[in-house]
């Protein structure tokens, strides 16, 4: 069963590589034209095409590209002429730092608030959380970031509006660099997670077995932690995975706004300059990350459920 999930994810990834590669075929002209510009001579173009193997049929190029990806050879950027892996490595690290910090802050907090809202269903607290999350979910990330900059950087001068510094010599610097982007991202990610966690716990609390446990005299804390939560773990893990995948999208806007030197920043620049090898690689990395998240959530849910575990 687990093997089936992993196999399914790998198949999706393979199909995805086809889609992403097909995008490059859709692009008007080809990479050689893009590199040499408008007034290149036909001879120069042909030479470059041969050098880049652009004269080969597309399926051969696809295989070469895929093989390169699998070997860790990510190609060469059209614009900077540097290997994509060289460009990517430091950026990826920076992005992972941002994402990791955000996850570390938001997952425990979101689970706590989601469960709390479910347990206190209908209370003032629940309604406040519900209003806040629906508000955050309904608003683009850049609006939240903009408002935060307005409040914390412009009005209160507590934090810098940009996070481009890479100087982590003291804790103070780290806090200054990360607080704003992490806060914004966490806001977006948590809203999703809280809503889904609340729904999952509410479902479990509404079940017959929780009613039966209540009629056994089981106290509230044990009711939630011992009876409802084990059943909600599957959906909650799923919610965490999906929310963290939102992080993958949200990080783009946030990095741009705060001028944070991560992958997303690189990606947006690559799109503006239509640097295709770079775009393709980053897209594949993000998609693989998404699939890994979702698949591991599936596997955790299977392992936690005795009905699926004991066949």
């Amino acid at each position: 069963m687990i093997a089936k999930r992993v196999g399914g994810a790998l198949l999706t990834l393979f199909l995805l590589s086809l889609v992403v590669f097909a995008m490059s075929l859709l692009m008007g002209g080809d990479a050689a034209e893009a590199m040499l510009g408008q007034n290149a001579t036909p001879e120069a173009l042909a030479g470059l095409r041969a050098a880049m193997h652009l004269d080969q049929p597309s399926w051969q190029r696809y295989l070469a590209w895929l093989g390169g990806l699998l070997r860790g050879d990510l190609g060469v950027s059209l614009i900077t002429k540097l290997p994509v892996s060289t460009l990517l490595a430091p950026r990826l690290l920076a992005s992972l730092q941002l994402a990791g910090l955000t996850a570390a802050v938001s997952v425990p907090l979101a689970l706590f608030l989601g469960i709390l809202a479910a347990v206190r269903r209908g209370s003032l607290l629940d309604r406040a959380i519900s209003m806040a999350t629906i508000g955050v979910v309904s608003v683009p990330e850049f609006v939240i970031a903009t408002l935060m900059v307005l409040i914390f950087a412009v009005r209160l001068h507590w934090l810098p509006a940009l996070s481009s510094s890479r100087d982590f010599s003291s804790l103070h610097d780290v806090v200054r660099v990360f607080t704003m982007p992490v806060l914004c991202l966490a806001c977006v990610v948590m809203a999703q997670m809280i809503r889904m966690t609340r729904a999952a716990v509410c479902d479990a609390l509404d079940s017959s077995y929780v009613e039966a446990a209540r009629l056994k005299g089981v106290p509230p804390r044990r009711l939630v932690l011992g009876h409802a939560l084990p059943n909600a773990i599957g959906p909650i893990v799923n919610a965490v995975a999906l929310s963290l995948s939102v992080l993958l999208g949200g990080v783009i806007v946030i990095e741009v706004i705060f001028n944070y030197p991560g992958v997303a920043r690189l990606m947006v620049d690559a799109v503006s300059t239509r640097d295709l090898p770079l775009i393709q690689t980053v897209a594949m990395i993000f998609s693989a990350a998404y699939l890994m998240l979702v698949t591991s959530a599936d596997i955790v849910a299977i392992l936690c459920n005795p009905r699926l575990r004991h066949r």
Partner: protein
Amino acid sequence: MNTVPKSGVAHEAQALKIRRRRFNVSLLLGGTTIIFWLIVALVGPMVAPHAPGQVVDLDVFSPASSALPLGSDYLGRDVLSRMLIASRFTVSIALLATLLAATVGVFCGLLAASSGWIDAIFSKLFDTLSAVPSLMFGLVVIGSLGASIPVLIGTLATVYSPGAFRTSRALARNIAVLDFVTVARARGETLSYIVLREILPNLVGPLAADFGLRFVFVTLLLSGLSFLGLGVQPPNADLGALVRENIAGLGFGAAAVLVPTFAIASLTIGMNMVIDAVSGGRRAGGRR
């Protein structure tokens, strides 16, 4: 013996009441907001006091005045006029893209629900599409094809058709196993009759809610792309583009940046409120 069952039946019928639709504040508020923006998108550009590209003020980011009700932007253009144009871009692109996504998604979803092997193919296909984070997908497409309005609409529709597909497929499959569909099949009804007359009428409500939700997501993604400068391109502008170009005005709280920001928020929050009210708070704010 004969009278008792009848009174039993009468009692049952009496106990069943037609459910009244919840009509509450959030429906009223959300509905009004949505209708307001639809009207703005429809007639806005006709009543705009200035041409959107015309520089009317020497001062940039000037505050609101009687001449310029929303002040001027970073080039000294009339924010009100630009807002009216931008609303039309945002609403119409988002609406068209949602419509396209819903049509494709629902059509494929219904088709998938009625046949095993079509289902297998479509499910894998749409799964693959949704495995790319939505903004990343937009970036890849626009990186390859450039940012024109048709490309934008197509991209947005592609990103959100898997969701519409999944929703309609799940709904249709739940209904397709119900006994009344089996009765129709046993009668020898054609597939198109079963799908159109037996299944579809039961999907209208949930699909409408799903449409609203998807409109919210499309609006958010469109604004996000434009904010990154990869959406609607100058000289045209949508609400996201207005925020982008006037971001410098944020420091002094210029209307040029705040008004489009709040416009996007009111559009999406309003839609969420409507969905929340009509669907009893079950679906709104799902996965982007």
